[in-house]
């Protein structure tokens, strides 16, 4: 492997490592903040001390998790500069704005009011404290909004034009960037998934407390909130997931094809419910894509177009240029070989623009700028040698999608059972199988959540910005050795901190199981 390829791979690995660790903590922070807000609201309205005790109990777990989420988050923001400096210049004019807005509107809000949440019980009024709790929850949710606006823009770049004079993209429509349809759907899909995750967390921990024979009343109250909140979150995640699939089919059809391991699409395309990929399959060959599969007839056509008789393109179709329009109609557009040629023409024209600029030849500059604009849509393809380089890792995307959907369905059932039990048959919460289901859901919901992000991010490879900038052109001027060193440094630090976090949480919850949560002053 040459040095450039090594730098690219290690930079991707480091960003993936940081993002994966960050996403271990952030969904719990977002979801649990809202749950704590609900519990404190009940306390505020009823004056029932149990709800105050529960608010403090879950708030403590929130705090343990919040700190490490903040710690891993700072690395992500700065890694755009340290490891993806070309990217930072090429789209910084657009991408930086949501990050700055996130800081101004969201980070300061959560940083300011989280201190009141923890230390303000006796310093401010009950109403002010409740407002602070909700403002913290609002802050973490707004934070998710703006970072997802930024992420969605990378997947569906809109609201910008290319400036050949500066060799970068510049924003020309903030509304399109902020209200990018992909961003809105991604925001709701992600936030609702955090509700589901936090709901499962509350249910799982409460089930463990009940299983230890302690705090039944408090655990039941927690389960009621956690299960209904989580159930609502999971159902809404499913609904917005449907919207995501329709968008991906139009905006990133190659990602959808990889999610399905689909090479040659057809009308009335089935959805693979379970399958084993043929890892030797390559685009354009005659090998079967699946070694084994159980498929749902018409499933993918329904998922992608809400029409069982519609066409869904596969990897080979897309390489040939067969795509869907925003309206879901099948069209024959530019094939990938031609896109590579167009990308190279755009790059060559940009080079000519620079030469003309240096020579002060305005006419040649205008001519070159027009040529760049003509082919800029496929600018990023110019970095590829062959069409197959534009295909994401199929196996990882395919299996991660199945893990996400499979576990999501299972967790939906667990949440529904818990919600019904807590509302209508509380004695069922003493059933050991139901308790075990709740406890076993804990690791599964994190796997499900991580799998979702793997689908989103691995499936959009090799692009940092869809069609415009591949990861190979987004890197920094660092050596592979530099990035390897920091990769392992962060891997060790994050792992040590994760061990500490889990240990503290487990110890705290264990201690709660030997204490009456409702009367304990210190846990």
């Amino acid at each position: 492997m040459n040095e450039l390829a090594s730098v690219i791979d290690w930079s991707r690995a480091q960003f993936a490592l940081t993002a994966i660790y960050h996403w271990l903590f952030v969904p719990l922070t977002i979801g649990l903040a809202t749950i704590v807000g609900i519990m404190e609201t009940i306390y505020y309205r009823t004056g029932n001390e149990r709800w105050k005790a529960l608010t403090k109990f879950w708030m403590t777990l929130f705090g343990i998790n919040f700190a490490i989420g903040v710690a891993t988050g700072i690395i992500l923001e700065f890694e755009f500069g340290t490891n993806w400096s070309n990217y930072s210049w090429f789209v910084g004019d657009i991408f930086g704005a949501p990050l700055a807005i996130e800081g101004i509107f969201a980070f300061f809000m959560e940083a300011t009011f989280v201190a009141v949440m923890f230390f303000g019980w006796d310093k401010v009024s009950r109403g002010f404290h409740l407002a602070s709790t909700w403002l913290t929850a609002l802050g973490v949710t707004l934070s998710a909004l703006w970072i997802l606006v930024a992420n969605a823009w990378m997947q569906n770049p809109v609201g910008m034009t290319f400036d050949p004079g500066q060799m970068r993209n510049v924003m020309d429509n903030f509304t399109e960037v902020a209200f990018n349809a992909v961003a809105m759907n991604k925001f709701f899909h992600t936030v609702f998934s955090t509700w589901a995750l936090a709901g499962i967390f509350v249910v799982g921990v409460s089930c463990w407390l009940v299983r230890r024979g302690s705090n039944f009343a408090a655990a039941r109250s927690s389960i009621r909130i956690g299960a209904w909140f989580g159930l609502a979150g999971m159902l809404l995640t499913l609904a917005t997931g449907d919207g995501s699939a329709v968008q991906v089919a139009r905006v990133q059809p190659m990602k959808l094809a990889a999610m399905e391991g689909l090479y040659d699409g057809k009308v009335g395309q089935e959805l693979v419910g379970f399958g084993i990929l043929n890892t030797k399959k390559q685009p354009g060959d005659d090998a079967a894509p699946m070694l084994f599969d159980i498929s749902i007839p018409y499933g993918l056509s329904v998922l992608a177009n809400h029409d069982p008789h519609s066409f869904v393109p596969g990897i080979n179709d897309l390489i040939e240029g067969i795509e869907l329009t925003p309206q879901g109609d099948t069209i024959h557009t530019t094939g990938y070989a031609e896109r590579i040629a167009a990308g190279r023409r755009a790059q060559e024209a940009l080079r000519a623009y620079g030469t003309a600029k240096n020579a002060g030849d305005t006419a040649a500059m205008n001519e070159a700028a027009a040529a760049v604009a003509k082919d800029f849509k496929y600018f990023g393809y110019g970095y590829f040698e062959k069409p197959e380089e534009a295909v994401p890792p199929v196996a990882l995307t395919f299996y991660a999608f199945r893990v996400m959907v499979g576990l999501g369905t299972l967790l939906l059932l667990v949440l529904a059972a818990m919600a019904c039990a807590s509302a209508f048959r509380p004695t069922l919460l003493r059933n050991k199988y139901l308790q075990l289901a709740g406890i076993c859901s804990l690791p599964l919901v994190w796997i499900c959540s991580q799998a979702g992000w793997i689908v989103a991010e691995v499936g959009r490879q090799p692009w940092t910005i869809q069609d415009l900038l591949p990861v190979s052109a987004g890197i920094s001027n660092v050596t592979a050795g530099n990035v390897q060193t920091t990769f392992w440094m962060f891997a060790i630090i994050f792992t040590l901190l994760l061990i500490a976090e889990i240990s503290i949480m487990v110890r705290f919850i264990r201690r709660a199981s030997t204490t009456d949560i409702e009367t304990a002053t210190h846990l």
Partner: protein
Amino acid sequence: MNELEILQHYWWFLISVLGAALVFMLFVQGGQSMLCCARNETERQLIVNCLGRKWEITFTTLVVFGGAFFASFPLFYSTSFGGAYWLWMLILVSFVVQAVSYEYRRKRGNVYGTGFYDSLLMFNGLFGCVLLGVAVAMMFFGAEFTIDKGNILDGANPVISRWSATRGLEAIASWRNLLLGATVFFLARTLAALYFVNSISGEEALTRRMRRAATYNGLVFTALFVVFAVVLLSSSGLRLQADGTFAAEPYLYLHNMLSMWGAGVVFVLGVVAVLYGIARTTADSHWHKGIWYCGAGTIAVVTTLLLMAGWGDTAYYPSLLDPQCSLTITNSSSSEFTLRVMSYVSAFIPFVVGYIAYVWRKMNAKPLTPEELAGEPHQY
């Protein structure tokens, strides 16, 4: 000045104020570096909990500083962060370990023990301040980079901003950069001592020692700051010429201070406020408002220093390898459209500052005492 230039100057002003606020908030780091000054567990707990209620604001200010730089001057973001790789990575690591240390240090089951987390806090206290000072010093004394945007068309080596092979380590080895790093470190310790005097009561021995610490650290800081000011004002820098090239100008920052006389006045007033805060805290054993004088003075001085680095066609990021690659607020900024949009967003900053101030006042209405700490279920 056309609209784009006005927006570029406005955003450099905001960046300067944000940077200055960050330097003020580094009192948290300065306080962490003084953990070893605690003589018993009560003192240590008071110090940690007093700082622990503010660490997130420092952290957030750093993150927003980075985000605002990214949004308004992306070429700096891509050049500095991607180039001075090791410098920024060390800064980041020091802040990562800080973020968890407050929350975990006294929690049961924290695996590594309280001493380990306290060591991390001290590590952040020392290296966070010094290295941030080094990073800012490069805005005056230059950095080893070149920029060629045409490189993005070279598929085999597409990076536009390139740095010397040491990737930021050379910046840490520069005595002038370290001078500012040390100055920031002792300023942070001075501010922390003043903050403790203001925000802790009921432990008279600790308060007395913190007054002394403010004096000693203030003296060291003042000496270092004078040296830094002399070095800076006597240094040459790069100024953008009418033909678009950069030329070295002796006493550039002194010239800037004299030509931007308003900023110069604010600079002097800031210095006076800092010295007044330190001196009166030393002389008057009942006065505890030094942090506000020193804090306001710090914000004034740092803001004007950064304005002198960026305004007046000055290269705020001079290239030591190729001066013509240096960065100014005009050649590194975002587009006019983005700056204008961001300016609308910035209208909300006073509101943000307002609620931070309101909450700060509410939470700090009474100084932290050992009695309050004893009854506090959520302690760091």
